[in-house]
């Protein structure tokens, strides 16, 4: 275990560079992309099952969320005018490259769908673009988790298996929640169920992130990130509980949806903050690596001793 290891650093300086990504730009980009992704799926299915009000709300949420997500991403660039350089290449080793190739067509399709709703025209085109957006909606909710995890930031990287599940759940809770709040009760059933399932997944997967990775889980429970995530948990759990009443009262639906959306936002901010904290303190980089190095040295010397005895 890492606890045994004596810790040294160079004047307490971080080993890795903390991300230069800005807050609130990046956490909001994560949240909006996720909410838009799940809403796009909801919208297409609502359209297919003749729930016009739900389809309209979901598609407007998807279009608005996607556009805002793109805006925050561009605003965060050091050279925003060069945004289109993202589409110079497609690299499967870069979640941001793959993500740009998901986000670009997704935002085009959702904007077109939302525009068709607003204009009240082109119903056929709307179905077509809505279906395309729905296919991309799934990956939209999870690619941002790989974006965070594919770094040397200890608390993000170690959680690389769970974070996509957290983000998927968080996206469903947010998209389901927002559409629950804005849709008439008789059409909002699927949205309520999506919201409740998403909240349950978000809470369960986040629990694993917060407790499953020893030392590097610590930043998720302490400091500002700890507070954000605690509040997120309370909002998400309450919002999920309220979905039970959201079928009967428009007020309950609105409160439930708002709480779920806030919970999802806070989860993104909390995850972002925890990663920043783990990057800034060299302990989280050095101690697990030191323990790993000691273990492999010990294994190597055991193997050497074994082969000496053998010969």
């Amino acid at each position, binding site marked *: 275990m890492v606890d045994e290891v004596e810790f040294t650093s160079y004047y307490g300086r971080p080993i890795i560079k903390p991300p230069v990504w800005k807050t609130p730009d990046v956490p909001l980009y994560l949240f909006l992309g996720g909410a838009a992704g799940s809403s796009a*799926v909801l919208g297409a299915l609502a359209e297919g099952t003749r729930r016009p009000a739900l389809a309209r709300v979901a598609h407007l949420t998807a279009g608005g969320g996607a556009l805002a997500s793109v805006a925050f991403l561009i605003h965060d660039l050091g050279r925003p005018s060069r945004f289109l350089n993202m589409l110079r290449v497609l690299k499967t080793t870069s979640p941001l490259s793959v993500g740009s190739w998901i986000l670009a067509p997704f935002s085009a399709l959702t904007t077109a769908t939302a525009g068709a709703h607003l204009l009240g025209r082109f119903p056929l085109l709307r179905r077509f673009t809505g279906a395309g957006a729905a296919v991309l909606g799934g990956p939209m909710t999870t690619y941002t988790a790989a974006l965070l995890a594919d770094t040397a930031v200890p608390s993000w990287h170690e959680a690389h298996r769970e974070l996509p599940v957290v983000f998927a759940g968080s996206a469903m809770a947010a998209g389901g929640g927002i559409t629950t709040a804005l849709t008439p009760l008789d059409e909002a*059933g699927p949205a309520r169920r999506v919201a409740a399932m998403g909240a349950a997944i978000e809470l369960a997967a986040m629990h694993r992130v917060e407790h499953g990775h020893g030392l590097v889980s610590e930043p998720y429970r302490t400091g500002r990130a700890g507070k954000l995530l605690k509040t997120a948990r309370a909002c998400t759990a309450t919002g999920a509980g309220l979905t039970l009443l959201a079928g009967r009262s428009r007020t309950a639906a609105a409160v439930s949806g708002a709480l779920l959306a806030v919970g999802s936002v806070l989860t993104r901010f909390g995850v972002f903050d925890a990663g920043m904290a783990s990057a800034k303190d060299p302990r989280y980089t050095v101690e697990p690596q030191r323990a790993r190095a000691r273990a492999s040295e010990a294994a190597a010397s055991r193997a050497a001793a074994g082969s000496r005895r053998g010969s």
Partner: protein
Amino acid sequence: MTAISSASAAFRGQDRGNRLFGPVPDVTGDRGYADDHPARVGFFTDTSVCIGCKACEVACKEWNLLPMDDAEGTVDALGLTGASYDNTGMLGANSWRHVAFVEQSRAVDLPMPTVGPPGAADGQRPLEDPPVVHPQVPASATTAEQSAPSQTASGDREIRWLMSSDVCKHCTHAACLDVCPTGSLFRTEFGTVVVQEDICNGCGYCVPACPYGVIDQRQDDGRVFKCTLCYDRLTDGLQPACASACPTESIQFGDLDALQARADQRLAALQEKGVEGARLYGRDETDGVGGAGAFFLLLDEPEVYGLPPDPVVTTRDLPAMWRSVGAGAAMVLGLIASAFVGRRR
């Protein structure tokens, strides 16, 4: 034009296994250069002979026209860190060489050429002014040894200076290059890793991807910068500026194969002389980044110099991440569809 980048070799289905991590015998050819490409070059930085003159830092700044900054990367600011003689602080967008200064106070069995406090060596003069050791002095000595610098004239304690000129490692598996979405970072014909400043859009992804904390964004500019291993000088047949300036040959530049052989000899020679703690860092091609193009001879644990003890290229785990991303996306589609199944409302 859009092209599938050569950095995605792992997914081209060739040469399975070592695309994302592990040894790569010909990293340059592997990235698509023709067979007559130049040999892979690199640095061997032998910290056991570094005198901390910072000529390397200055030469690098001058040649590459890097702006002045303080230890936090604030441009046009002058700052003193209080961390020994190190006011550069870290590698960053404006410091592509960084000389680390570590003062260790320990019992006199230190293996290195050491400098005692005035008079302590001949034992004649009581030590009135004991060496001030920085309270945070990093050392792999025990805590008791660190926190109790000698107050006596017995001469049983000495200061050991560790100085090391750090630089971009030009990794075999460079996380910065792997994650760059614009293709701005690329592998040169010399096997080095370089940013194309006319393409970088400052997305900042490479910054937290680097396991050594090398590359950084320049404030007021927005783009990222790091050591190019003097790409411009290499193409003209010159040595990198730092290596030409180093008076002690602590920084050695050359073909990586030759440097590795020389480093192995140097390590053996030091170990024969009984220099404990001497080790090569970044030399091992089976390490987490597939070996570094710029590697080091250190005299203590890497973290003492601010280096990660066991760095791993983050993209090693990318297949697992993509699997989880795919499973998550499928789950979202499936669950949302299930919410519509068989219900009226």
